[in-house]
């Protein structure tokens, strides 16, 4: 059964993709390799996982403003996520997604972070500010 989560739009665009979910905040500068899209931060729940083409769901971004450029570079290299969904917006991730034109929705219910599992399919509507989750059967 699919479920609709209403949030707030940040960057427009409608995309559908496989979910990659992190229960912990994500730091792009130093935490993600732009040449591969793989999370390289030691001890991070997503360490060793690629965000390429995924609907990336995490609570909030953290770290220096250089992180915005890193999101842009990762996307420019074709290794970026197809959409970003955050519980709360932070300036670094928001600016990075605008620069890279990655559809982004924020302020979704925390339940999404708890329910969504890697491999589920999600449809992110950056116009309506919604996320539709289709659990993997």
């Amino acid at each position, binding site marked *: 059964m699919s479920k609709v989560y209403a949030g*707030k739009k940040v960057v427009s665009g409608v995309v559908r993709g496989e979910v990659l979910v992190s229960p912990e905040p994500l730091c792009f500068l130093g935490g993600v390799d*732009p040449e591969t899209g793989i999370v390289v931060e030691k001890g991070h729940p997503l360490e060793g996982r690629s965000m390429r083409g995924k609907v990336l769901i995490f609570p909030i971004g953290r770290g220096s*403003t*250089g992180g915005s450029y890193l999101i842009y570079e990762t996307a420019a290299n074709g290794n970026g996520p197809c959409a970003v969904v955050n519980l709360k917006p932070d300036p670094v991730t928001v600016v990075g997604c605008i620069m890279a034109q990655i559809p982004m929705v924020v302020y979704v219910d925390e339940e999404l972070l708890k329910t969504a599992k890697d491999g589920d399919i999600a449809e992110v509507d950056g116009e309506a500010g919604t996320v539709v989750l289709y659990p993997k059967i």
Partner: protein
Amino acid sequence: MKLTPEEERMLAGEMGEPCRKAMEIQVQLGEIYNAERMIEVKNVHMPGSSVVVAGKAGTRFVEEMADKGGCFKTFTTLNPAAGDLDKWEEIGFPEDDMDLQFRLTGAYRKMGAVPCHTCTPYIAGNTPAFGEHVAWGESSAIAFVNSVIGARTNREGGPSALAAALTGRVPAYGYHLDENRVGQVLIDVDNFLKEPADFGTLGYWVGKIVQEKVPVFWGFNTRPSLEELKMLGAALASSGSVALFHVVGVTPEAPNLEAAFKGYKPEFTLHYTKHEAAKTVQTLNKHKGNRVDLVAIGCPHSSITEIREIAANLCGKKLSANTGLWVMAALPIKTMADRLGYTKIIEEAGGRIICDTCPVLGSTAAVLSKWGYSSLATNSAKLAHYSPGSWNLETYYGTLDDCIKAALTGRWAE
């Protein structure tokens, strides 16, 4: 957020794609911080001007904005670069970094920036007025322009400062608003501070405790100099993330204690004595022996007064054969030092004036390894803060006089 018709047109892309994208960034930042409107700015100091910060990605993004016809609506100055734009080769800044740097500087120039590449734009030709809304990056310059000049800026990062330059707008939040400029912590300072490094030590101690709050300094019996206020702000912004401070009777928003706190009570009071100063100096000194390879003065970039003092102390003398001296300064200040004969004195002693860059924002590791430097002495609390962690250097911190002595003898005198 309420936008003016002109701002709506920017957002609709009627003023080009770079302006549209930049406006989108400003609107979204405004939404995050609950800004009700945009404020017009005519003055930007651009962080992320060094490729050490912007990287390949930032450089490509800035180039993309320039290629698509981006044009700065503001007077825009650039923060330090990865190396000295003229003398990078003889100093040893790596060629590939400098190639990228020339692309980045070129793209900013194309959009209208002044490539002064300094962290002290306020003494190199960019001086906003009291109360003026600006968009500045570079933590030490932010502290100076907010506090000493009384202009108003948030702590802008690379992309948001770029967006401010392209749109001439910033969202109205944070330090742009009166209510966020009120003093929060009272710093009662014993009256023993004599020179810039003493103010850096004070700032370093206070910043660590107050973090991002607004400290109010009280107790100096003489008016701090420009150099002292520069060191104070730089240190406050390196151990903490202070963007605004007040000095009672000195900075423009604090003619007296009541004005600094707008009638509110301080959240808490700190008392600064010789004891705290001595402990802080001890924390910033991280060395085993006493050998000094490199003396670095000018973090933030030196004023002409500081260069004059260095030249006066070096006149007719020679540096220790194994010790280097870098005096970092903005190009206009160096030009003045050339004319005054200070550059010649410093060079004849064996030191050099370096422009456009600094250890913190430059491709420093390569230069240090070229010269075989493994220890650094400085009168800057900010540089002493970064030096051990960033380049694994043994670090000596003291007054300008201590540093000059170290340059002449090659040893740090305890």
